[in-house]
């Protein structure tokens, strides 16, 4: 009980920080537009053109065409082994496609890029670095300040001096999110980042991700097994099956969304489940 109460308090603190951070940004530059209704300053569009990937003889993705507009939050669902992680690794530049091209912000992806960040299912923090130096892993100039700001953004500024081993799963994932935010990426790729969390923590993480996405405006690709999660977060949901896209469904529900309480959301979930 005490644990969950302190998490809630952290969240309240976090919203104060959010207000502070926003006020500061407004002093420094023009008001940043939020959400999908306005074009984002930060987000970059992603184009896949006849993208195919096979491992040996087994074709995993075949002739995929897809345009993800800048700033969109796209969710991808599909059965285990249908190639979701493979697609994400291709977009991140961790693997090369067998054929076809990927372009981010108009430039073709040849290798790993600094404007694209990837969040894995496990947080992958370096256990021998404290939380703050994990967030500032790239050690860019003035990393202490930017890392501290990113930690404050996810509501964990009081844990900056802890070892990762003492964090809970949700906190570790929030640190990983802060680490991804430090470089202000144009694209954030998430590979089932909340899959290992309990339902309550997962909902908290949804709210956090939604808030930060609206604030930063990066293009987001979220892979998930959880259809409810996809409908709760995304502007658009794709279903991948047999190497291709079998459903491309816009989610026109008002934000901020309440999870599980909406009949329109339930109808969309049923629609997606039919295709998976």
């Amino acid at each position, binding site marked *: 009980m005490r644990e969950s109460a302190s998490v809630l308090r952290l969240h309240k603190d976090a919203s104060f920080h959010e207000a502070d951070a926003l006020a500061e940004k407004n002093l420094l530059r023009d008001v940043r537009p939020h959400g999908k209704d306005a074009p984002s300053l930060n987000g970059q569009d992603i184009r896949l053109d006849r993208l195919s990937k096979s491992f040996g003889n087994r074709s995993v993705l075949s002739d995929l065409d897809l345009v993800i507009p800048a700033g969109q939050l796209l969710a991808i669902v599909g059965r285990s082994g249908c190639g979701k992680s493979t697609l994400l690794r291709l977009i991140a530049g*961790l693997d090369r496609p067998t054929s076809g091209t990927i372009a981010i912000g108009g430039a073709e992806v040849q290798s790993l890029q600094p404007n694209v960040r990837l969040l*894995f299912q496990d947080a992958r923090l*370096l*256990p021998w670095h404290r939380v703050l130096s994990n967030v500032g*892993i*790239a050690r860019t100039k003035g990393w202490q300040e930017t890392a501290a700001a990113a930690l404050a953004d996810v509501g964990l500024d009081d844990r900056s001096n802890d070892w*990762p*081993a003492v964090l809970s799963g949700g906190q570790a994932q929030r640190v990983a999110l802060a*680490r991804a935010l430090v470089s202000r990426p144009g694209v954030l790729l998430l590979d089932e980042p909340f899959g290992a969390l309990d339902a309550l923590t997962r909902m908290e993480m949804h709210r956090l991700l939604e808030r930060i996405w609206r604030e930063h405006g990066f293009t987001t690709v979220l892979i998930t097994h959880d259809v409810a999660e996809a409908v709760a977060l995304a502007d658009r949901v794709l279903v991948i099956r047999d190497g291709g896209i079998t459903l491309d469904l816009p989610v026109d529900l008002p934000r901020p969304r309440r999870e599980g309480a909406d009949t329109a959301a339930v109808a969309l979930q049923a629609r997606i489940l039919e295709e998976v």
Partner: protein
Amino acid sequence: MVGPSHLHGTGAAALRTLASWALPIVLLIAWEIASRSGVLSTRLLPAPSAVAAAFWESLRNGTLLTHATISTERALKGLFIGGGIGFVLGVLAGVSRPAEIVFDSSMQMLRNVPHLAIIPLVILWFGIGEEAKIFLVAIGTAFPLYLNTFHGIRTVDPKLIEMARVYGLGPVPLFWRVILPGAMPSILVGLRFSLGLMWLTLIVAETISASSGIGYMTMNAREFLQTDVVVLGIIVYALLGKLADFITRLLEARALAWHPTYRRTVTRGATS
């Protein structure tokens, strides 16, 4: 953890310490009585009091310190040379496939040779000078560090390496911030093995051929039937070994402070 329960905790700990010392103390007293009553010949085993007297005497005339210093110097020189080579080769083989192909099978083959078996050869090569002993210690300490460094680097979580690449770490920061710390627990295990072999090798080498050092001191004493000095030499070796072990523990506590297992043992050690 306040008040009575705390007091109870320290009381129980003190009692445990007392109990664990009881048997050695009883044995020591029995030994002393046996020696004094003549049941135990002092030509075979001296009385504890005689060992203590020999300790005091050798400390007073400076011979103990001289010999212990020389032994420690040989041990450390051998460790730095051998352990250093083992570590560097382990790192090279760990991070580069070509280096692995060149070194690893040779190292795996050589490590099966008991290094003390080459003593006759070493004496042929170096005579009985300093080099012979340092060479033997170096050979003995190189392999544990090589094997554990190589193994440690190869078992660093590949997911962490992939993450570091995504965050743009080049090969040099990747090595210092991900690979080396990840391999550190294993490297320190290797260091412990090396330290054990370091003393063992030195004892054998000094006993066979030396004109100084703790091993020489005991062999010399044997010729004059000074069993008290022989036993003293054995105790000094044990203490030096214990000291090396203690230093590695400190090193582990510092270098592995992030590690949940090590941190737990360190805190427990500090509170009890």
